[in-house]
């Protein structure tokens, strides 16, 4: 399982590719890629996102199942998806908390 990630050009924020080629701010809404066909489609969307100056540095990351939840396999990508592990008031984890508050 994979998904596509990037940073948004205007503010550098971490984003993931959604199902319809849109870029989403939380990994929970990312498009999970399970086959080559989807991956090809996703990479086309990713390139389009770069061409439109919306994102930069697109790349695919590996996902894994942990306690029934999908999460990035690498610690680096988990930190990108959450925020600094030492500052829970910063990054996605903080914004998620605000959204649900």
């Amino acid at each position, binding site marked *: 399982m994979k998904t596509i990630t990037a940073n948004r050009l*205007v503010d*550098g924020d971490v984003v993931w590719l959604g199902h319809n080629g849109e870029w989403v701010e939380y990994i929970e809404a990312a498009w999970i890629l399970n086959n080559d066909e989807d991956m090809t489609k996703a990479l086309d969307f990713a390139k389009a996102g770069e061409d439109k*100056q919306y994102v930069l540095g697109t790349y695919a990351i590996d996902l894994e199942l942990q306690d029934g939840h999908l999460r990035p396999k690498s*610690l680096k990508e988990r*930190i990108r998806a959450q925020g600094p592990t030492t*500052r829970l008031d*910063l990054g996605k984890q903080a914004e998620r908390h605000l959204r649900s508050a």
Partner: protein
Amino acid sequence: MYRYDEFDRDFVNQRVAQFEDQVRRRMSGELTEDEFKPLRLMNGLYLQLHAYMLRVAIPYGTLNATQMRKLAHIARTYDRGYGHFTTRQNVQFNWPKLSDTPQILRELADVEMHAIQTSGNCIRNVTSDQFAGAASDEFADPRVYAEILRQWSSLHPEFLFLPRKFKIAITGAEQDRAAVQVHDIGLQLTRNENGDIGFVVYVGGGLGRTPMVGRKVRDFLPENDLLAYSEAILRVYNRYGRRDNKYKARIKILVHETGLEELKQDIETEFEATKNGILDLPNEEVVRINEYFAPPSFEALPKISTELEAAKRNDRDLALFSSRNLHAHKAEGYTSVTISLKPIGGAPGDATADQMDVIADLAERFGHDELRVTHEQNLVLPHVKLQDVPTVFKILKANDLADSNAGLITDMIACPGLDYCALANARSIPIAQEISKRFEEVKRQNEIGDLKLKISGCINACGHHHVGHIGILGVDRKGEELYQITLGGSADQNTSIGKIIGRGFPEAEITDAVETVVDTYLANRLDEEESFIDAYRRLGDQPFKDALYGA
């Protein structure tokens, strides 16, 4: 302090205007990321894990209250309310928007600051002793020469595309507080037998994946030849430094591969052709720049402040603070105060916008409007009256800035690591925090005494682990963070590179391992006077290995 002249102001303003246009063209699609990246890096703007990161230059770590307040304002307005002070005496903001950076740079230019040459293969911010102009043991104020080097190296057309980045450090005293021997060029001010000012010159020091101690190329370089000789070194490096492999492109590799004697000869030949020309330091220019750094008019005060001594008797915390965080000043009745940015359990080098404002106020009220950033990620009020220390301490304490740990085990260097940095392999800050909490007890820290612990989250060694008495390097071992310990490093006048002691430790075990190393030192030291590094140099690594891995 140095003040911009018309030339400085014009060129910084021009750069802001250029960058504003570059950002506009990037957002509109006229520039691709490949085209834009080198331009943003030339203005200190990186892309990290969560966002962009802006690195702002603080030349030789000196700034005034207005500049510190501006950093606080930027942290508050454009970032997340804090800044991170670095081992290169700079400050980094971790969350700026690309669209805001031209405005940030414009605001910085208003207070004579910028982010030029904080990235890229050019001569970077010249670093220096945080007690420059104040220390009782210095030959001369090294910032005068750091400023001369800054002017020479800023936008130097020949040296903007070097094989790799180039770092210069200068110290004014025999006691090296600027780690000069681990820089591409290290300069140590000295005097010859006639009393003339000059420099001991080291070349080819550096950390990173191939740590090397700088080699001495001159015992005494006359003051007048500073720029001509520096230019000669850079020319030799620019011509012969490797461009085929970025990991072998620093001047340290050139020194190593060419051999010291041959390289020295190359430098001297180039110097012969360069000296007695336009790069001779004109005496009037040295005098002019010296005037910018003229010490404030110190009052005639008694050597010992009765006010401070009385206050210390009534306040144990103040006594402790005074024993660790005050540094001997050249003027009687004055001291340099270290403001620790290493609270127990905190992120080394971070300060909130509110704290920056408080520190700016202190500089204005009690410190002749001067502040310093140290390469150990602390701040310094260089000129404070001893009699004002109790009030300064009280204000610091009220703002969580009064940790009395300067030079102790909890005063550690740590890079941002994998929590922020795109290059990192492992986290640094949580390790620093755990160790800090483990050694929280004041009595224990003081029993251990002077100990430099330095943590890097990857081999690039921004956390200077190679020169920590105890160094910790985070690596990625099959997706798990693993931490290697090095022992015996040092970045003072007796610089040495630490030795890897054995296999690494997982996150859950590294704090215990550090404690084992410290306990081994305590059990084996001759007496309380023998510091960790002295004991290590006497004992070697065997007792530490035995304690960590079993005999």
